[in-house]
């Protein structure tokens, strides 16, 4: 029994053209290798996000080539940049429009904790309104750091049970 539930134990010489594995493993393998990001590019981190998408760092190697700006067609929201209180409602609304299963990467210091902007107008972290799966440190994080976060998210997605019960978010008033 493989320890990692997504490990597909498969040997062509013995099994031939048939892979026998768990449903979880296969579905998670599809999901994690085709995470379509919804770039919520708000500020400077958006530039590094675009750089991650361009030819030098190439996020499309990870299956995330199509940066879908429509929330209905994406699974991963990358919050890149400072989330202000004025913008918070828009971000939440867009997150609500995404279909399950969906994940969130908080890219950069501002999206994780408010960054160096501790002021009256900046929400101290997008996790005040969204459930974040991976936090990326950096101001701005290098595209390699974003790709590392994407890989960590892929590991996380790989471990999820396919039928996932949705826990209610603790909402701070």
């Amino acid at each position, binding site marked *: 029994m493989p320890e990692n539930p997504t490990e597909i134990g498969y040997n062509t010489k013995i099994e031939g053209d048939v892979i026998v594995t768990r449903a979880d493993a296969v579905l998670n393998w599809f999901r994690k290798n085709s995470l379509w990001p919804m770039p919520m590019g708000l500020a400077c981190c958006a530039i590094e996000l675009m750089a991650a998408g361009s030819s030098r760092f190439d996020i499309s190697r990870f299956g995330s080539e199509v940066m879908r700006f429509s929330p209905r067609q994406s699974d991963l929201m990358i919050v890149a940049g400072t989330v202000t*209180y*004025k913008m*918070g*409602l828009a971000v939440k609304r867009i997150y609500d429009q995404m279909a399950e299963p969906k994940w969130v990467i908080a890219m950069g210091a501002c999206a994780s*904790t*408010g960054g*160096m902007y*501790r*002021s*009256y*107008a*900046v*929400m*101290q972290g997008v996790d*005040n309104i969204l459930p974040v799966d991976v936090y990326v440190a950096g101001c701005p994080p290098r595209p390699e750091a974003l790709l590392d976060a994407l890989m960590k998210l892929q590991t996380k997605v790989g471990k999820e049970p396919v039928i996932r019960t949705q826990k209610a978010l603790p909402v701070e*008033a």
Partner: protein
Amino acid sequence: MSTTAKRLAQKLKKAFSTALGSVSEFRDELTLIVTDPAQIKDVCQYAKTELGFDYLVDVSSVDNYGEDPRFEVVYEMYGYEHQAHLRLVATVSEESAVIPSVTSVWKTADWHEREIYDMMGISFEGHPDLRRILMWEGYPYFPLRKDFPLAGKATELPEVAFSKPAPLEGGPFVTTAGSEDRQRGEPRSKSVSS
């Protein structure tokens, strides 16, 4: 260039001797105090049409908390022909917090004045559309005033926005030396044990 500015400032002073006060020079720049802010629109109109200051570079506001009059509105003017700068400083008291708008003179003053209204709370008489520009409609405070804390205050406007005070703990991003430990100095840090 400084002589052109001096000459224009003198001309402006002569035309509006009741409204303008002293000229001061600092770092090659001329600042003219406006003693009667109610005439600011006429002064600016004259400056634009007669003296050629066709470009309003910036309108700023300053909060001198504790002094009376409390606010200052600073107009930075420039002319493309003669390439001279001139600065006008008008004072606004806290009780009235109103000054005539110069939007009819330069259209660019529109957004600058909206921002001053948003941040400092000074109203502009005659402004075509005075509403908040950087904060959301319905935000109850004027953030750039000196008595408003940097961390902000908690507000709640359903369906629009909420705001909470940011954790500053005594200073901009300074874990005060002498606080017991990182936990108390930095409230959002999570320790391993908890």
